[in-house]
């Protein structure tokens, strides 16, 4: 059974992995330098796209962490996570854009709503399955389709948008960065810190890690596995919802917006290694930056294809991902 | 006595961990050999290496004179090498009968008869014969997952026997058994050896091992530390040390 790699376990076997990750980063830097020097891309544009890539990666971190947590709990990839992301954006649309509640309040509401939804899903949709993997996979697939098409029904087909929250640009000499996008990074950092404390410094976090490693042993220790799973669902759904809420003021909202981030997040956790938080975070940043820079070059569709190919090739040589256990 | 299975310099590393270190062993055909050692010594890894489930980093494996290093697991039963597993015992959603019928796989010719029709009666009769040997013939239609753990181990043996092994590698065949079942199984194993099959087993049950095995190989931290008859092994100081521990004061003084 895959278990969430604790930070301590990672340290024992990370020697060569940090090296490999480091080498990858150096190669990327080299590629970027070559591109700039050969005039293919202007340095300001490159730096801008890298920074936006980090912001995009931060969003992916929020989704990927939830996916990893749930993977540790259930041993499957929860396919409806993209729809959760979408729901977060729609909550922002209604409460913030249409009904004018302050953004910070709406963020909290998003977390609460989606966390409650997560508890609902665990109790009524996942628990009856008694741990059967195939059934769970199929069920989440169905749930994602249900949420997305209901979304179209309820929210309509036209694209929506929400007004920006943090207007303005920061100027660093030759580049200007939109504050809106940059704001994602500190917010994600705060959430990440909270996540870390919850998972590694609290009793509930310990319980979650225990359940992910060995459900029976955890139950024997008196841990209410169902409750802890519900907590994990609530946490993951909440984070994904916040990711959607953060994105809402920036672009267009529609019921299908979750599909692409979900696919990217799945690629990320595979790249990072199923079940590893550290891997998910690092892979999310890598993918975010890659996507951002490659889109500038070759357009988003081919960037997407390239990413797919890269991950596939990577998997052939290292099927466990960056930090995963085979 | 011909040497049936031999390994030379067999080595397997998992990252920084050396699971099997430069192992040389020889098993003569028709013998009953045991591989023992403390937990984590690498015994199942050795089985995995020999039976093709893992590729060795170094070393070669020879079976019946042929170099089988790097062979895929499904190529070995045809040559007569059958292994069982410690944990995953049987096909849980199959009946006992279906489990045993699967053991026949590499011996079954693929004709329209076998492809498009249910298994023929003579196959089922053969299966019943093997089930009788292990004492499970009354449970032939039972779902494998409903069997008690001792019965599941016996079923495992039946499936292996159905494959007509020349070398039978059993991974902890006695775990989870009552004393009566252990006696029964040991007798079955002796019968099998009596028919000319070589049996190579991993076991923790020392009494059983000392009782029936002719040759014992001891592994610790991936390396062979002793090899010989049961009497020799029982007296071997290093073996005693790894099983009973050492007098720390004397050792570290």
């Amino acid at each position: 059974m895959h278990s969430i790699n604790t930070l301590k376990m990672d340290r024992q076997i990370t020697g060569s992995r940090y090296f490999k990750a480091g080498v990858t980063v150096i190669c990327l830097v080299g590629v970027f330098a070559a591109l700039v020097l050969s005039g293919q891309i202007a340095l300001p544009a490159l730096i801008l796209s890298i920074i936006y890539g980090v912001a995009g990666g931060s969003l992916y971190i929020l989704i990927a962490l939830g996916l990893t947590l749930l993977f540790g709990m259930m041993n499957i990839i929860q396919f409806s996570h993209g729809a959760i992301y979408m729901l977060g954006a729609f909550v922002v649309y209604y409460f913030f854009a249409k009904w004018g509640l302050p953004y910070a309040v709406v963020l909290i509401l998003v977390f609460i709503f989606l966390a409650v939804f997560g508890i609902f899903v665990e109790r009524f949709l996942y628990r009856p399955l008694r741990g059967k993997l195939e059934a769970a996979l199929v069920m989440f697939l169905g749930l994602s389709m249900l949420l997305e098409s209901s979304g179209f029904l309820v929210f309509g087909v036209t694209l929506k948008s929400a007004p920006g929250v943090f207007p303005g640009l920061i100027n660093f000499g030759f580049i200007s960065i939109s504050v809106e996008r940059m704001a994602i990074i500190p917010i994600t950092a705060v959430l990440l810190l909270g996540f870390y404390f919850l998972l590694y410094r609290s009793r509930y976090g310990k319980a979650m890690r225990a359940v992910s490693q060995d459900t029976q042993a955890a139950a024997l220790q008196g841990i209410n596995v169902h409750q802890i799973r519900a907590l994990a669902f609530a946490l993951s759904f909440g984070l994904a919802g916040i990711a959607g809420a953060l994105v809402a003021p920036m672009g267009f909202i529609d019921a299908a917006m979750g599909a692409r981030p979900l696919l990217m997040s799945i690629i990320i956790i595979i790249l990072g290694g199923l079940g590893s938080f550290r891997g998910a975070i690092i892979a999310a940043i890598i993918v975010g930056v890659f996507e951002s820079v490659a889109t500038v070059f070759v357009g988003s569709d081919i960037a997407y294809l390239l990413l797919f190919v890269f991950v596939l090739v990577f998997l052939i040589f290292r099927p466990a991902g960056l930090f995963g256990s085979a | 006595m011909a040497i049936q299975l031999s390994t030379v310099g067999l080595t397997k590393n998992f990252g920084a961990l050396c699971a099997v270190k430069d192992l040389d062993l020889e098993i003569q055909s028709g013998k009953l050999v045991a591989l023992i050692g403390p937990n984590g010594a690498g015994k199942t890894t050795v089985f995995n290496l020999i039976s093709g489930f893992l590729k060795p980093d170094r070393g070669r494996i020879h079976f019946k004179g042929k170099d089988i290093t790097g062979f895929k697991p499904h190529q070995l039963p045809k040559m007569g090498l059958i292994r069982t597993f410690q944990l995953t015992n049987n096909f849980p959603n199959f009946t006992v009968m279906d489990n045993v019928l699967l053991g026949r796989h590499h011996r079954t010719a693929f004709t329209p008869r076998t492809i498009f029709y249910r298994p023929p009666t003579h196959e089922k009769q053969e299966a019943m014969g093997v089930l009788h040997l292990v004492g499970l013939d009354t449970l032939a239609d039972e779902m494998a997952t409903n069997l008690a753990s001792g019965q599941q181990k016996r079923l495992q043996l039946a499936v292996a026997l159905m494959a007509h092994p020349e070398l039978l590698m059993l991974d902890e065949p006695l775990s989870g058994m009552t004393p009566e079942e252990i006696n029964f199984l040991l007798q079955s194993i002796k019968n099998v050896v009596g028919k000319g099959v070589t049996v190579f087993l991993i076991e923790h049950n020392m009494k059983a091992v000392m009782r029936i095995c002719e040759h014992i190989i001891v592994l610790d931290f991936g390396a062979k530390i002793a090899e010989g008859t049961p009497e020799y092994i029982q007296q071997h100081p290093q073996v005693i040390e790894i099983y009973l521990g050492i007098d720390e004061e004397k050792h570290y003084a």
Partner: protein
Amino acid sequence: MLNTKRWSKMALFLCLMIALGLLPLYVDQPYVPHILTTVFINIMLAVSLRCSLITGLFNISHAAFFALGAYGSAILAIQFGIPSGVSLLLGGLIAAFSSLLIGVVILRLRGIYFAMVSIAIVEVIRVALNKGGALTGGYSGLGNIPALTVFGNNITGRDEFYWLGFVLMLITIFVLYRLEIGRIGMTWKAISQSENIAASVGVNIMLYKTIAFVIGSFFAGLAGGFFAYFQGFLGPDTFGFFPSVKILIYNYVGGTALLAGPIGGATLLTLISEPLRGFTYYEVIFFSIALIAVIVFLPGGIITLPQKLRLRKKYGYPT
């Protein structure tokens, strides 16, 4: 096994087949044979996917081979002038051959990775068909599909398509039923339960997975070729991720334990969703609710229903 239970089941089945066979002669309006023909196609798809499922392959790419068979047959007939009946068969072979090439690469992947790569496959093929230009008709679809002639008979009317579809479905069910009964089916089921034990008795896992994948794809391609002539034109959006998932849903709602599962699931879901066809969102909502409801409340699928009702009658309702 000459017991009465088995014979009576067979007799029932035979009666049903005869009734279905004679149906067009007694039903006048063309709607019923038309929808039943669609049911036959979906049954072929669901049953052929079953090969992958019982081998333990969570295959979401099935619609891709349906598409390859459909477009393959049509293109062969249109561009190369191959007789339509032959092109039907060739469509199946094209699908099978492509699945062989694709399978060699992706079948070595573990469970969840295989599932996701299969999603990628079906979407890539859909996109490729969309961008196929004049060959595949691109976004607007492929028309000009000539009339179907099989062994010299022109298949043009509703009834004739019905009978041809009926025959093709019966052939599919018969072949796959016998495969499942025999050694190959047993080996597939063994692989899905424990690859390790199977390998230890001599099963070449990769070979059998490939056989399951290819045979399933062949029948999907066959269904595709028939579909091309039946519908008269092909639009690439009929094949993609959701159609593949629909075929999976036929299997899971119907039940994965028996061959009757996909047959029942395909029949039931096709008939019930018929009024929804074309209203995309409602259709998706219906299918997903049906799926979730069955998975949560009736995990074995619809075919377990008679058994459950029987047991409940015998022992009462659980408290």
